[in-house]
């Protein structure tokens, strides 16, 4: 095992506001001393956003239906509609019942699949979706096979059509240090496109037979926090990663819990966390909870 303070120089450079290189991130990811990785990740978190940990109650809807009594900070349309017209109809239905709650939805992967990457087409579709009531595209997966320079233009085109683009994700990715490629892509995209509020570095799809490990997840979160100073929040999906790993990620640099359930659904089991429990979990990880909405605005 490496000796203590193997990453002490990284901590010092972060404290001095210096950016980390790819080599630094690889050292961080390869360091077997997980405690020290956590110290670096948490130091980067504190430097970026202090002790404030945000979370968002998200109502996911596949068919556009939204319950009347709603505590959500975000209504997120999930799934891949067959056509843009279907998507517009879904948005219209969700927005009609949203009562001011931001409606987000869809992945850039779906949009590119339907529309391509032509800027004008993207702007036109974004405009149609925004006109129906969509406030933001739910996710920009960094594992899309597009150069960052192209992604920057895509984001600009979508914004021109009226959609906010705040959240970067990874759908699926090989395990191990190659995931650092996405950390680099995230930082570059955020730096060049601006106004990226959150990056969720843990992939949304994890193989059941060989899932990613706790060490790799924690290290990736720490590397993302240390390697993406242009992004306000490193995000973990509460329902996808579960309360245990999501909470522990807060001690490795994560600063936002996404997809907290907006309705009390017993079928979610331990992932059905009420706001009081989210509050408890964040405080137990040493943070101060702040609820936000789908546009990353503080609620209440």
């Amino acid at each position, binding site marked *: *095992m490496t000796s*203590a303070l193997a990453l002490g120089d990284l901590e010092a450079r972060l404290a001095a506001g210096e950016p980390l290189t790819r080599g630094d991130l690889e050292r961080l990811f390869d360091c*077997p*001393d*997980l*405690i020290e990785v*956590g*110290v670096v990740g*948490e130091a980067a978190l504190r430097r970026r956003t202090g002790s404030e940990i945000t979370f968002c109650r998200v109502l996911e809807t596949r068919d556009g239906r939204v319950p009347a009594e709603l505590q959500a900070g975000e209504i997120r349309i999930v799934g891949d509609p067959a056509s843009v017209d279907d998507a517009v109809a879904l948005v219209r239905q969700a927005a009609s019942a949203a009562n001011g709650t931001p409606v987000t939805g869809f992945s850039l992967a779906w949009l590119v699949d339907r529309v391509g990457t032509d800027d004008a087409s993207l702007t036109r579709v974004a405009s149609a979706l925004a006109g129906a009531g969509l406030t933001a595209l739910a996710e920009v997966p960094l594992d899309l096979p597009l150069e960052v320079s192209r992604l920057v233009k895509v984001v600009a085109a979508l914004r021109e059509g009226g959609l906010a683009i705040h959240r970067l994700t990874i759908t699926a990715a090989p395990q191990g240090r190659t995931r650092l490629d996405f950390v680099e892509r995230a930082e570059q995209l955020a730096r060049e496109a601006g106004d990226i509020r959150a990056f969720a570095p843990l992939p949304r799809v994890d193989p*059941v*037979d*060989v*899932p*990613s*490990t*706790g*060490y*790799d*997840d*924690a290290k990736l979160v720490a590397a993302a926090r240390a390697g993406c100073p242009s992004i306000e929040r490193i995000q973990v999906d509460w329902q996808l*990663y*579960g*309360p*245990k*790993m999501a*909470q*522990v990620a*807060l*001690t490795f640099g994560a600063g936002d819990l996404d997809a907290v359930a907006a309705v009390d659904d017993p079928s979610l*089991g*331990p992932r059905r966390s009420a706001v009081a*429990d989210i509050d*408890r*979990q964040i405080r*137990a*990880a*040493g943070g101060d909870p702040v609820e936000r909405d789908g546009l990353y605005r503080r609620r209440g």
Partner: protein
Amino acid sequence: MQVERIADVVRQGGRLSFEQARELYLHAPTSLLGRLADDVRQRLHPDGVVTYIIDRNVNYTNVCVARCRFCAFYRPVGSPEGYTLGFDEIFRKIEETIALGGEQLLLQGGHNPDVPLEWYEDLFRQVKARYPSFRMHALSPPEIIHISRLSHLPPETVIARLVDAGLDSIPGGGAEILVDRVRRLLNCYNKATADEWLNVMRLAHRAGLRTTATMMYGHVETIDERLEHLFRLRDLQDETGGFTAFIAWSFQPSHTELGGVEATGVEYLRTLAIARLVLDNFPNLQASWVTQGGKVGQLSLAFGANDMGSVMIEENVVRAAGAEYCMDEYEVVRNIENAGFIARRRNMHYDILGEPMFRLQKVPRMLQLAVARADGRGGEAEDLRRYEARSPEARRRRALPQ
């Protein structure tokens, strides 16, 4: 700063007092607790080996008169969902375990008034006759006390008879929190007081058995009571040296009478770390992936654990309370190696048995843990008819012609 002064005590290999442990547990940053615990682990296990065992966690009966408020597994006497496995069912489980490279059953069950001492003796003898090298890690202290009460024999006699029949070691279940105020609130005072639990372990150690110790935290206990639990274990280990390992897990509230919310993942890691620091005379600390999940289970290796526990093969108790995690040998080893350690199989005594079994022979993947009975049916096995029952229902049932 007080925390830093206490941390220095640990760094210099000193022993923590109750007050020092309390100060660290309450006020040390999680990263400092982890660092200290990891340093202790490295001192105790400088070879970088993390161990695990291939054994099967079999619950021979879910019928129980104890009615602990934290338990979602038990069924009362007479319940149609109550079951007691037969010898043949247990032999089949042993054969499946051997096929996976396993060498031991962790056998525990409810306090069933209709399963007498002779049943256990016959079971152990038959297991040893059929599978001579197979080991029986069986019957937690409250079960020993229950059998002692049923048979009107002192616990030391029960232990001696079970050892004579083939008992190899005793698991540390049923400890919960070794403070009687807590045990009364959990309704587990009657199954075993704190002193009774410790005394069974003392007797077992004196009889030459090795045992483990556990702690179930995160229900009605205070921080001081968690620490009292740890210090009582440390005192007994000073006296006997018979514990091989300590395992902590958080109370799983789903479907239990007690209910509530589960302690958090960070709290688990902090609790594990403080246990590593207090229990300086325990050679091994296990990660509880079955309650924390594989990811936090693996992170335990950075917070003082040097053992990934068992691949389990089967699990019934924690599953009943809402936790369903599974790690087969392949996954356990992958997690150990991914964390930078050397994975080695062990037995209950922590003797190293060798390389991972799946590297020596073909072992099928296991993506879900088995249950006591795959078809979920209740009822007791026919072979129990040979034994004396205590409950009126079972007496009537067993008196009927076959």
